């Protein structure tokens, strides 16, 4: 089983003291539909995420899970329905979009670090230019988060000199430097070697322990079991099933979910 080797949750007990879900709504998606040309990628998505929730979105490739979370910070445009992030309704207004983006951190499959800037500059760029924080203060914040993801010694190197796992941890630190209230993870470990997956998952678990609101598109079922408070299964652009991880993995209700789980966990 692939997950057995990469599941850091087995090696440490998770501190759940701060992992509390509040009643405050962080993200509300209502009747959202999206088309690529005539292709209906997302169909009638309704999803409410409360503050402090840790949601794992899974599903076969092409099921629209990445598109879903990319709609939340407007990297993709939706054509119907509404998305409300932190009480702000996502509209076409650029100011509004930039505001939501600066509150929502995003981690990509391919890291998307800026190769022409050093690690430290990658982390301080947005705080300095978007938040207008003085450089010195931004650098202190950046070092704080780089220490948190355990690579402060790489601060002056360039992304091209780091391993994949290190780059992904920098990407997480870069997002955190904006002090986001919500973090989106778009398959953060899919481009990594097994040895590096662990260090990235460790960082994500640490984040969850601190009470961050997270939506993760991932195939790390071990992570979903241990950290998520809700697992969402998508297929063909729709939410097919969502449940608490225990129930989701042990007693899936839809046939499609059963098939999917048997295929990724079955051997």
């Amino acid at each position, binding site marked *: 089983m692939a997950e057995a080797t990469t599941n850091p949750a087995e090696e440490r007990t998770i501190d759940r003291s701060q992992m509390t879900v509040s009643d405050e709504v962080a993200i509300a998606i209502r009747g959202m539909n999206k088309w690529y040309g005539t292709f209906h990628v997302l169909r009638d998505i309704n999803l409410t995420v409360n503050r402090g929730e840790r949601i794992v979105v899974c599903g076969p490739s092409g099921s629209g899970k990445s598109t879903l979370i990319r709609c939340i*910070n407007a990297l993709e445009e939706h054509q119907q329905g509404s998305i409300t992030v932190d009480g702000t309704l996502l509209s076409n207004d650029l100011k509004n979009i*930039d505001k939501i983006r600066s509150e*929502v951190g995003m981690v990509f499959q391919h890291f998307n670090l800026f190769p*022409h800037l050093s690690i430290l500059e990658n982390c301080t760029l947005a705080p300095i230019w*978007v938040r207008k924080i003085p450089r010195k203060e931004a650098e202190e914040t950046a070092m704080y988060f780089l220490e948190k993801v355990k690579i402060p010694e790489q601060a002056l190197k*360039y992304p091209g000199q780091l391993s994949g796992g290190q780059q992904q941890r920098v990407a997480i630190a870069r997002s955190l430097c*904006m002090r986001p209230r919500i973090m989106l993870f778009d398959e953060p470990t899919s481009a990594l070697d097994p040895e590096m997956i662990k260090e990235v998952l460790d960082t994500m678990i640490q984040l969850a322990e601190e009470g961050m609101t997270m939506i993760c598109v991932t195939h790390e079922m071990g992570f979903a079991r241990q950290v998520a408070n809700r697992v969402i299964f998508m297929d063909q652009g729709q939410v097919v099933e969502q449940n608490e991880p225990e129930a989701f993995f042990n007693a899936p209700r839809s046939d499609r979910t059963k098939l999917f789980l048997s295929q990724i966990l079955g051997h």
Partner: protein
Amino acid sequence: MTSISASHAFVRTEILPEQAPPMAQAGVLKWLRENLFSSWFNAILTFISLYVIYWILSHVTGWVFFGIWDAGSLNECREFRDARYDEGARVACWSVLTDRWHQLMFGFYPPEHYWRPILAFAVFGGAIAPVLFDAVPRRMLYVTAAAPFLCYWLLWGGGTIWGPVAVAAGFALPFLVARFGEGVFGSLGVTVMAIIVPILYWLFLAGPMAGALGAVLPIRITSIESNDFGGFMLAFIIGITGIFLSLPLGILLALGRQSDLFIINKFSILFIEVIRGVPLIVWLFTASILLNYFLPPGTNFDLMLRVIIMVTLFAAAYMAEVVRGGLAALPRGQYEGADSLGLDYWQSMRLIILPQALKISIPGIVNTFIALFKDTTLVVFIGLFDPIGLSNAIRATTDWNGIYWELFIFIGLCFFVCCFSMSKYSQYLERKLRRDHR
């Protein structure tokens, strides 16, 4: 697991130390054997090539190095040659350069004012140094900001220095408006005011202000007409202005061509395709002849200025396509990474996208610069005295009628030195901007 025999089982107990790569079997002889005499056929080619090189050098070196430098005309050159060497010996007559170098450099610019273009060139050197090299103190950038106005005043003169100073001051206004106007006008108002205020200033305030300052402190130099400009000075003025205006314009056009905004997008495409699709020489004729029909009668729109505008627009169209190539080469993730952090369009372009796209485009950009610089020789066709035009003028005099090679070799050499320097600088820049494996 007993099926694996003992001979296959293996455990590494120590890590092998790093070793230097094997020494290349160096040596001159080895190089010669491998590159010049690796087979009979190659050996024959080597000897033939050696002979060709010898033949060329034996003819050219004598011509170049025994050349005559001190004659006053081509006939005198021939007399000196017959007196010093054999009659009819093949030697160059470099005297045309010593006799006419000032014309080749400055055209018909009045000799007593030669210090002005020379000083302007020095100012340009000081202005460009901090842009080209990191080691130059950043404070020099103030020279860079002042240089265009100062150089313009030095070259053309006319009026006091306060004219260009007053015009230059107008460029500070948008920043002042942005700094202090936010509360008064609101964010959209600031953008509008930042455009309107300087225009009003230039129209109504700059003139009287320069006049008043000029009355107090009259620092004045005589005016020199564009018609008197010529030679390499002209080539440099057109080339340098074109280079520095075409890059930002080309970048804007490239961004416009990528833009989602319909009008901007279509305008950029139209501009690029039309300008690029017509030969430069046609545009130059348009600038020199046709524009007069469209301008109100009596307006005197300087020909050189028209040429500079045309050359700039022409180079900008090429530049736009070069930069677009760089933009297209960036992975989408860079755009998304910048977007996801909440950077607005201009921030993400300035901080993330353009630094990378321009770095990728450096060879193409410098290629366009070099082409633009060499294309300045085309202005000879519309009657401006660039170096080629002057060489024609020099050969038209009785003194130097019949001289070709020496002039063209000199002009070619000067262009080569400039273009080769640009090429070398671009290679230096690419090395400096490398970010991997350091």
